[in-house]
C-alpha cells in the first residue's frame, strides 16, 4: 500500500510539474506580451520603460529559466501580480477559493442525496413507470446546459415566485452552522444557505442524472450476486439486505466516478458562477480572460489544475483503501 501511495504521489508530482511548465509557457504563446498589455492601458509608457519592465519581469530570459523562476515563486506562494487589479494573483484566488469549494460541496451533497435514493428505487422497480421517469430525468440531466437550468431556476424561483435570491453570496453556510446552533436561531444558517440553493442545484443536476443511473446499474448487478441470494435464503429482512448488503457494494463505483466528476464540477463552476454572480474562482477565470489579465489567468489555471490533480489522487487512494479488491487488481 505504501508503495502504491508513493508511486501515485510521484506521478501526481510529475503531472503538476508539467502543468506548471505549460502555465509558465502560456505567456510566450500570446500575441504580444504582458508589457504590451500594460502599455496599452498606460499611454505615458515609453519604449525604454517597457524594456526595463520586461527585464524586471524576466520576460527577456530563456523559456526554461522563466519556468524555473515561475515554479520557484509559485512554490513560495507568489503567482505574480494581477495586471488589472494590481494586487497579488494568489491573494485574489485565496479570497475566492472558499466560495467555490463550498458551492462544489453542496452540489455534490445534493447530487448524492438525490441520486442514491433515485438509483435504488429505479433499480428495485426496474421496468416500471418509476424506472421510466428515472430515465427521463437522466436524459434531461445530460441534455440541459447548466447555465440554462440556472437561468430557468432564477426565472421561476427568483423572478416569479420571489422565494430565493437570484444572485450573490452572503458568506459561508457551513461556517454559520455553529453560531446557528449556539444561538438556537436557524435563520442565521438559512440567510447564508439560501444563496447556495439555486447555484448548487444548477451544478448538481447533471451529476444527479449520471449518478442515479450508475447507482441503478450497479445495484442491479449487486442484487444478482450469490451472497444476496444467500442473505435472502437466510431469511434476513429485505430492508437489511438492500441497505446493508447491496447498497454498500453498489456505492463503490460511484465513489470513483464522483472523483472524476470533480473535473466537470470545476468546468461547471466557471459557467454557474457567472450566471449567479458568485465570487468564486470560476468567475474569476472568465473575468481574467475578458480582462486579458495574463498573470491572473496563469494563476487560476495553475491552481485549478493542481487542485484537480490533487483531488483525483485523494479519491484514487481513498477508493483503494475502501475496496480491498483493488489492491490486487
Amino acid at each position, binding site marked *: 500500500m505504501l508503495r502504491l501511495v508513493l508511486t501515485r504521489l510521484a506521478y501526481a508530482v510529475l503531472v503538476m510539474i508539467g502543468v506548471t511548465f505549460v502555465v509558465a509557457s502560456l505567456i510566450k504563446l500570446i500575441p504580444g506580451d504582458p508589457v504590451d498589455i500594460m502599455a496599452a492601458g498606460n499611454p505615458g509608457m515609453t519604449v525604454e520603460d517597457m524594456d526595463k519592465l520586461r527585464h524586471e519581469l524576466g520576460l527577456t530570459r530563456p523559456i526554461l529559466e522563466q519556468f524555473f523562476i515561475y515554479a520557484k515563486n509559485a512554490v513560495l506562494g507568489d503567482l505574480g501580480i494581477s495586471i488589472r487589479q494590481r494586487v497579488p494573483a494568489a491573494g485574489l484566488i485565496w479570497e475566492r477559493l472558499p466560495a467555490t469549494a463550498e458551492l462544489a460541496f453542496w452540489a455534490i451533497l445534493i447530487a448524492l442525496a438525490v441520486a442514491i435514493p433515485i438509483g435504488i428505487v429505479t433499480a428495485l422497480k426496474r421496468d416500471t413507470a418509476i424506472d421510466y421517469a428515472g430515465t427521463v430525468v437522466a436524459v434531461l440531466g445530460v441534455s*440541459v446546459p447548466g447555465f440554462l437550468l440556472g437561468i430557468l431556476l432564477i426565472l421561476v424561483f427568483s423572478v416569479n415566485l420571489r422565494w430565493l435570491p437570484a444572485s450573490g453570496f452572503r458568506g459561508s453556510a457551513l461556517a454559520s452552522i455553529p453560531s446557528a446552533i449556539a444561538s438556537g436561531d436557524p435563520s442565521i444558517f438559512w440567510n447564508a444557505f439560501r444563496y447556495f440553493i439555486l447555484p448548487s442545484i444548477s451544478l448538481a443536476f447533471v451529476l444527479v442524472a449520471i449518478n442515479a443511473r450508475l447507482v441503478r446499474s450497479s445495484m442491479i448487478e449487486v442484487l444478482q450476486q450469490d451472497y444476496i441470494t444467500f442473505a435472502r435464503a437466510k431469511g434476513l429482512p429485505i430492508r437489511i439486505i438492500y441497505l446493508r448488503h447491496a447498497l454498500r457494494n453498489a456505492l463503490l463505483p460511484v465513489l470513483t466516478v464522483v472523483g472524476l466528476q470533480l473535473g466537470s464540477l470545476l468546468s461547471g463552476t466557471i459557467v454557474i458562477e*457567472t450566471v449567479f454572480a458568485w465570487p468564486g474562482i470560476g468567475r474569476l*477565470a472568465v473575468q481574467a480572460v475578458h480582462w486579458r489579465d495574463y498573470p491572473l489567468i496563469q494563476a487560476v*489555471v495553475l491552481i485549478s*489544475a493542481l487542485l484537480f490533480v490533487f483531488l483525483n489522487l485523494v479519491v484514487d487512494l481513498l477508493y483503494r483503501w475502501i475496496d480491498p479488491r483493488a489492491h490486487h487488481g
Partner: protein
Amino acid sequence: MANAHNLTPIDPADSLSVTLADPTAHPRQTAAAAFPVETAGTRIRQALLRSAKGMTGLALILLVLLVALLAPMIVPHDPAAQILEWRFAPPAWAAEGSVTNLLGGDNLGRDILTRVLLGARVSIAVALIVVSIASVVGSLLGAVAGYFGGVVDAVIMRLIDFQLAFPFLLLALIFMAILGPGFSTLVLALSFALWINFARVVRSETLRIRSLEFIDAAHSIGVSHSRIIMSHVLPNVLPAIIVIATLDIALVIIAEAALSFLGLGVQPPTPSWGLMISEGRDFLHDAPWMVLGPGIAVLLTSIGINLFGDFLRDIYDPRLQRL
C-alpha cells in the same frame, strides 16, 4: 464532462468482434464483415422501429438538421433588422402577442424566431467541424498508439493523462486567453479538448484487434503498417467511433452555447443560442421569452442527440446501458 461519455472496451467474445477474424478476407470485405453493411443496417433499422428512444432522437435530429439547412429560406424576417415596435414584443402565446413574432422580439427589436432558426446553423456547424477534427485526429493517434505500442504509445498516453489534468472548460478558456475569442478559436479549443475521448477508446480497441489473427495474416503477406491501420484496424473500430461522435456532438453544442454565453465563443451579431440566452438574461423579468426561445432550441437539440446516441450505444454494446 468530457469524461462522462467514455466507453469501456468491449470484450473479444462480443458478437461484433467474432466476425472479424477472417484472414482470407479482402480489406474491404473485412471492414464490411466487422459491421456488415446490409445486416447491420437492417439490424439498426429494426431496432430503431422498436425503440421509442431512438425514434424520438432521430426525429429531433432530423428536425434540427432540416432547420439548419433551410434556415435562410424559411426565416420570417431579417435577423439583423431592428424594428422599434418589435422591441420586447411578446410571443404569440402571450396575451398581447401576435403571429408576426411567434417567439417574440428581443431588446433591440429583432425577431427571436428568425435568430433561433439561424442559430441552429451556428450550433450544427461548430459541432460537425469540431467532432470531425477531434474524431479523425483522436482516432488516428489512438490507433497508432495501440498498434505500435512501446514509446509511441507511452508518449501519446502520457499526453492524454496530462491533458486530463485540465478540466474541459478550463482548457477552452486557455485557448480563448491565448488566441482571443471567436469562431475559429472556439473550434480549435473544443477539438483540442475532445480528441482524447476518441484516442482512448480507439487505442484500447486497437490493442484488442491487433492481437487477432487476420492482422498477423495481413502482416505475413507484406501489407504495410499504415495500410493495416487504415483498412483493417480503423474500419473495425468504426462503430465505437460513431457512438462517441454522436454523443460528443451534444457535448459540443452545449459547450458552444456555454462559451458563447460567457462571451467567449461566437461574437455578436451572429445569432448563436448561447449568446441569445446571455443577452436575454438581463431582461428575465420583463422579457423571459428572450431566454425561452433559444433555451428550448438548445434543449431539444441536445435531448435529440443524446437519445439517439444512447440508442446507438445500446445496439453497439447492450451491456453499456447508460440510460
